[in-house]
């Protein structure tokens, strides 16, 4: 055992107000908390709440689509449900879950005692929560938004959607957007300023790197969304005409502004998850990540390229072959660093000693599912294929293989990996396996067949469809798969609730892990660290546990 060093533990310069309030975790303490761990947990519960809401919405949609010519829902209700489902899942499930893990674990992984701006941290969370509540208030105010999550002009104009739903969409997303941007500023400052001595950029865990890159992506992408939302509010409330072609506005302008945000958003929702996988694969393979430099550098490359690919959402809008070719090239290019990471993780497992925990099962399933989503994604960068298949169920299948097979699998893997640290108790591995198989089978039943439906000519976002051969049976399979996913999610939420009290005690390092968050108790005390072990590589805890076989000695990297 090497000696425990006294190093300065980075902390915000002002004393933390949270430390003066009692830490009994009563309601008032949660509401007033500026502790990054409590805020992280609240982000995660927010995400659980909204996945239930967004899940119920889509189950109703799938019931309507189970058989042709169905009259279970009328088109007005159907359109509100699928719009709210998409908006909820992207802005209030995936994003908050990512922020939850980042808020909780970035300070712990860099050996800090809190975020750089604890009060702003709380502000970011509450903005996100109230943004979500504002969006949902639309149901009470006369109707939810009904023009899809990307809300194309001119359908988003008052003359085509006169209920206040879209106004709530704008204000809710603006409010949540303020939270997202301020959280990103907070992460950037925290990561640059509060790393423990010894942790240079090259010793940062991949997860922290991905959050850093992601925060820059958010800072660059959200202004475009926010501008578009404000312009749309002006159109609707003050009769401006940015997006109204009838008055000299441009319908396509909305698409440019939205996708200039929207495509980076896809990477915003996947890069942090790549970070989670880059923690999970090494720990459960007992090997370092294969190609640390490449994984990080390709993350930076993706972030830069992400701003040059948005027109691939618009290949069928008639911009002309020259424009389309440019964006086809950039979109094909961005597929390479994204896809190659799959081989990095495979190579991490290769030659390792693999433990099939539920966290690892989801990581392994991700390799296969995300490959499907990635390959169908490449097919959209090939413009002629896009011309046939865009805006069909093939796109629906593709985006769910990315958002579920990629982002959500990563977040679930993260839950199983980090739940012991957050709660001090294990999630049941046995029940976790049930959940894994139910969810993975349900997911593939639901979405695999949708590739075929798209190729058979079924457009997306239709509230019903004619009884063409094959359409009925494939939609039925898809709906049944959806039901299975619904049951699986309920099981997960049940596990999350009950394991807090009844789970097996975890101890500080149940997985024999590599990074600093596992050196403190589970759950960590209000003040994360009094002492931090020396950091000389990306796996400081392993170095400390195995002083005879350290990464820094092996690689000849020694910062001292």
């Amino acid at each position, binding site marked *: 055992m090497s000696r425990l060093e006294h190093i300065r533990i980075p902390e915000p310069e002002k004393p933390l107000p949270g430390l003066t309030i009692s830490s009994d975790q009563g309601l008032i303490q949660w509401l007033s908390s500026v502790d990054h761990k409590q805020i992280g947990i609240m982000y995660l519960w927010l995400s659980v709440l909204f996945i239930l809401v967004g899940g119920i919405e889509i189950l109703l949609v799938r019931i309507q689509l189970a058989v042709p010519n169905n009259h279970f829902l009328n088109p007005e209700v159907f359109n509100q449900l699928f719009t709210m489902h998409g908006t909820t899942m992207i802005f209030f499930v995936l994003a908050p879950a990512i922020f939850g893990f980042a808020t909780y674990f970035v300070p712990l992984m860099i050996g800090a005692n809190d975020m750089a701006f604890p009060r702003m941290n709380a502000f970011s969370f509450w903005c996100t929560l109230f943004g979500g509540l504002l969006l949902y208030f639309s149901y009470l105010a006369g109707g939810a938004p009904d023009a899809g999550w990307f809300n194309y002009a001119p359908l988003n104009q008052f003359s085509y959607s006169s209920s206040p739903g879209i106004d709530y969409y704008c204000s809710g997303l603006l409010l949540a957007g303020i939270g997202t941007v301020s959280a990103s500023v907070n992460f950037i400052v925290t990561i640059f300023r509060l790393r423990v001595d010894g942790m240079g950029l090259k010793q940062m865990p991949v997860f922290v790197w991905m959050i850093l890159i992601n925060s820059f992506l958010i800072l660059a992408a959200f202004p475009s969304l926010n501008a578009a939302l404000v312009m749309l509010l002006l159109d609707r409330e003050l009769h401006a005409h940015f997006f109204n072609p009838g008055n000299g506005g441009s319908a396509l302008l909305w698409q440019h502004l939205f996708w200039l945000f929207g495509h980076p958003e896809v990477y915003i929702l996947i890069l942090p998850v790549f970070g989670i996988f880059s923690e999970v694969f090494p720990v459960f393979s007992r090997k370092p990540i294969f190609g640390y430099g490449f994984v990080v550098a390709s993350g930076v490359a993706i972030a830069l390229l992400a701003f040059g690919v948005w027109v691939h959402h618009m290949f069928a809008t008639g911009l002309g072959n020259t424009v389309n070719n440019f964006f086809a090239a950039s979109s094909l290019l961005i597929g*390479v660093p994204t896809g190659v990471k799959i081989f990095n993780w495979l190579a991490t497992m290769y030659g390792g000693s693999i433990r099939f925990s539920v966290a690892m099962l989801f990581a392994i399933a991700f390799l296969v599912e995300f490959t499907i989503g990635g390959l169908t994604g490449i097919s959209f960068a*090939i413009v002629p294929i896009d011309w046939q298949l865009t805006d069909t169920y093939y796109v629906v299948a593709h985006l769910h293989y990315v958002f579920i097979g990629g982002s959500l699998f990563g977040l679930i893997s993260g839950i199983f990996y980090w739940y012991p640290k957050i709660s001090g108790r294990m999630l049941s591995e046995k029940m976790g396996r049930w959940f894994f198989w139910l969810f993975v089978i349900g997911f593939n039943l639901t979405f695999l067949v949708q590739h075929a439906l798209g190729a058979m000519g079924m457009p997306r976002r239709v509230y019903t469809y004619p009884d063409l051969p094959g359409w009925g049976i494939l939609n039925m399979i898809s709906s049944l798969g959806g039901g299975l996913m619904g049951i699986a999610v309920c099981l997960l939420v049940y596990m999350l609730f009950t394991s807090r009290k009844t789970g097996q005690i975890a101890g500080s390092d149940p997985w024999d892990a590599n990074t600093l968050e596992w050196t403190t108790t589970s759950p960590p005390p209000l003040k994360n660290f009094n002492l931090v072990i020396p950091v000389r590589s990306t796996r400081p805890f392993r170095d400390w546990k195995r002083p005879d076989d350290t990464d820094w000695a092996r690689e000849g990297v020694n910062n001292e």
Partner: protein
Amino acid sequence: MVLAGLWDIKQSSIFNVASPQADKIGAVGNGFLVAATGMFLLVAVLTVYICRRYRARAGGPEPAQTSGNRKLEIMMVGVPLLMVTFFFFWSLKTMSAVLPPRPANRTPDVIITGHQYWWQADYPANRISTANEIHLPVGRKLLVALRAADVIHDWWVPALGAKMDMIPGTENYLWITITRPGTYLGGCSEFCGQEHAWMRIRVIAQEPKDYEQWLVSQAAIDKLPADSLTTKGAGLFMHASCSSCHSIRGTAAVGTDGPDLSHFAGRRTMLTGIQKVSKQNIYLWLLDPQKVKPGAHMPKFIFGRDSLLALTAYLSSLK
């Protein structure tokens, strides 16, 4: 009849193409499918192999701590890069074949305009206009102009190739060459509001001589049976509000907000694909449009039963 029906339906997917444009797209698609399947199998087989081979064993030694391999990493980037470059050039070639620039002086063969929730088809050379069931000749390279009257719609008939958005304020176009006669199904592929689902497309491709015959029949004015019910219906159509939105060739009805109803009963389906044209369906539609197609812009008129029967008789006589 049943067989003919099946034939119809087979033609709604990208696998049963009937135009050289769709054929070229299909070729890139198939090429990509092969490459993608190969890539997928590589990942899947590696995943399964590695998981079986390197399962942790109790008391097993710590594995070798390899953290990279420069040669392998270069290959991991290089091979996919070559593959996407190959597809990029294939894509370029296909795009210029499928959608070459539009000559400035060529009038489109047909102009299709998307409305909430129906299709207007104008044939500029013949000065005729129809709706929803679009007749086109086989064997000719047609220039199809695409417009939108309100929100964005999207023209997609998979058997005939690329889809293209119809965007208010601009005009897009497609080249379509149909190789064999038949009925081709498609649908609006950009979400356009409540009845997006029921903006189905029927393209009826005909041999040139049948097509010419159809053009002549559309240009003709309907000869109405002289029974009193039909005459009453015609009178109602002109004097109630119908004629302010709908046109019927050779009558005082010249409205343009709703579908052109000239030769309406000669079509197979009504309401953009919801149902077959029949007296009963026409009657029920006129009785309560929002019940049949909620969200459609057709108002509900409070007609008595007599008036409804008269209008139904009139409309179903428009062969």
